């Protein structure tokens, strides 16, 4: 994990200002390794990601194959987790659905990280007009509850995976912009940034080599937490029928459809619910652990 290159704790400040320090990575690693929650959630995430990557070879049955004689069954030898409203195998659909959730989460958080960090770093380094353009545009995005903004946008543009990724990226961009802005303001004052400027380095070079590497720690924490939120949002929108369009399974749209068959089969909603919650739990635990390890003074 690249966080090893980031930083050990160094600077003073309140929660979130874990920036800029010498690269003494071993204590960070040791603290991460010694945290059983981090180890367990990392292992679990590795399994979930492996399932998503190898999904086509892991599904015991065709996730799309309908069988009207076997509708809404509970777990059995033929269908380990039961079947859905068309008699499709739930286990196979959960495995297939892991791809949707993870792909949407990874792509949207990547976009949010790159653009948001760029906004924050540029805004903090140049100040003035740049700061107004980058940070105030981010403020407007924060004036609305994320799920509602996502619903409004997707409803008008139509549900598709690309729209979903775009909206989620847009919603999580402000977090990265604000965090890298705050961290950037602190790092900017450091001697090594001044030194780089004195020897005549140009702005892009200073941003890339002096500032960015020293604000990576809080960004990594935020990436882990945002991946959890992105899965939450993707599944929430799919639950509403505004995310992944059927028949492609996603954990969210399975809960959404299964909600209509609660009286016939509780299993239908139970499994995808567990899958969503477990994945988010792992990302949250990992994010908390990263934060504690990168700045032990914040550990409570």
């Amino acid at each position, binding site marked *: 994990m690249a966080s090893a290159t980031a930083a050990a704790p160094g600077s003073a400040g309140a929660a979130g200002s874990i920036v800029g320090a010498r690269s003494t990575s071993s204590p960070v690693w040791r603290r991460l390794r010694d945290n059983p929650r981090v180890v367990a959630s990392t292992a679990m995430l590795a399994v979930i990601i492996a399932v998503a990557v190898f999904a086509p070879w892991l599904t015991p049955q065709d996730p799309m194959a309908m069988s009207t004689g076997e509708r809404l069954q509970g777990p059995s030898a033929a269908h380990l987790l039961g079947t859905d409203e068309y008699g499709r195998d739930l286990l196979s659909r959960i495995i297939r659905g892991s791809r949707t959730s993870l792909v949407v989460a990874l792509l949207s958080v990547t976009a949010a990280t790159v653009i948001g960090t760029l906004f924050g770093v540029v805004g903090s380094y140049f100040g003035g007009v740049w700061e107004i353009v980058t940070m105030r545009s981010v403020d407007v995005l924060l004036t609305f509850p*994320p799920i509602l903004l996502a*619903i*409004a946008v997707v*409803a008008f543009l139509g549900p598709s995976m690309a729209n979903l990724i775009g909206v989620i990226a847009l919603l999580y961009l402000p977090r990265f912009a604000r965090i890298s802005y705050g961290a950037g303001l602190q790092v900017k004052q450091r001697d090594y940034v001044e030194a780089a400027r004195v020897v005549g380095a140009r702005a892009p070079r200073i941003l890339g080599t002096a500032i960015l590497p020293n604000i990576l720690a809080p960004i990594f924490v935020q990436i882990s937490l945002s991946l959890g939120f992105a899965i939450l949002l993707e*599944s*929430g929108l799919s639950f*509403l029928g505004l995310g992944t369009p059927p028949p492609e399974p996603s954990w*969210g749209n399975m809960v959404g459809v299964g909600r209509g068959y609660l009286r016939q089969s509780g299993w239908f909603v139970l499994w995808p619910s567990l899958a969503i*919650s477990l994945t988010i739990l792992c990302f949250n635990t990992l994010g908390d652990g990263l934060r504690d390890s990168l700045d032990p003074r914040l550990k*409570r």
Partner: protein
Amino acid sequence: MLAYILRRLAQAVVLVFVVATLVAAFIHLIPGDPVYVILGETNVTPERVAAVRAELGLDRPIPLQYAEWLAGLTRGDFGDSLTSGRPIGGDLLLRLPRTLELILVSTLLSVVIGVPLGVLAASYRNRAPDLAVSTFALIGVSAPVFVVGTLLLLLFGVLWGVLPATGYVAFGDDPARHLKHLILPSVTLATLETAIVLRMTRSSMLEVLAEDYVRTARAKGLDGRLVLYGHALRNALIPVLTIIGIQIGSALGGTVLVELIFNWPGLSSYLVTGINQRDYPVVQAVVLVIAALFILLNLLTDLVYAVVDPRIRYG
């Protein structure tokens, strides 16, 4: 202080105006024409399209439409619904209190449960009660609101049948049934809020308990409970208040899913219905009202924060 409040209010008004403009622009920029949605697939002729467009006032220049919409807003006139033909303002007045009720009750629940549990966890740091409470909090933070809602509905509404599964009964019609219907949606909303309030209380308490004045209070022989509640909790509550303010805002988002699951006829379900029926004026109005509420809540949070913590300057 007054100058600070006035300036923040002015900022809020500008922000609401910006959001209103964005919403209006958005509706006009997106592909697709509401007229075709109203007419449906079958009876589309150029004459009918023109007639409906004139009826809705969509044939006039966009700046004029925008100006009239804004002028209407200042009178509390949100326009009429395309599907029901009723004034939207009236529907908003009917539905807004129902959504606010959900938010209020769930916030109360989260404070009443979350703060004592957070204090408990902090005072038993790293021991069994702390681990139990923190595990609950971690699960509460990770389970999406629609998962919690669906599973509660499955357990209490369907499998055990102890609570009404879905629906709404007006308080005036039957107070007891109204409250019964209120339980599942508000507990669903409260789960996440409780977990967050709990975590914040715990970490804030731990920080305060390490302060010198707490040690002094203990050293001079004060009762442990008095130190915990009288000295520590009072100071630990400031960040908790902020997080509650933020939570009320995000509960507003959570109501969308909760209202859908429990068939609660509030503001958010109005929005979802409006979207599904491509009822643009309704969507426009609800989005605006929610954004205004959200901005207002953030403002109130900042003001409460400034009042509670005298160290904060109204700069």
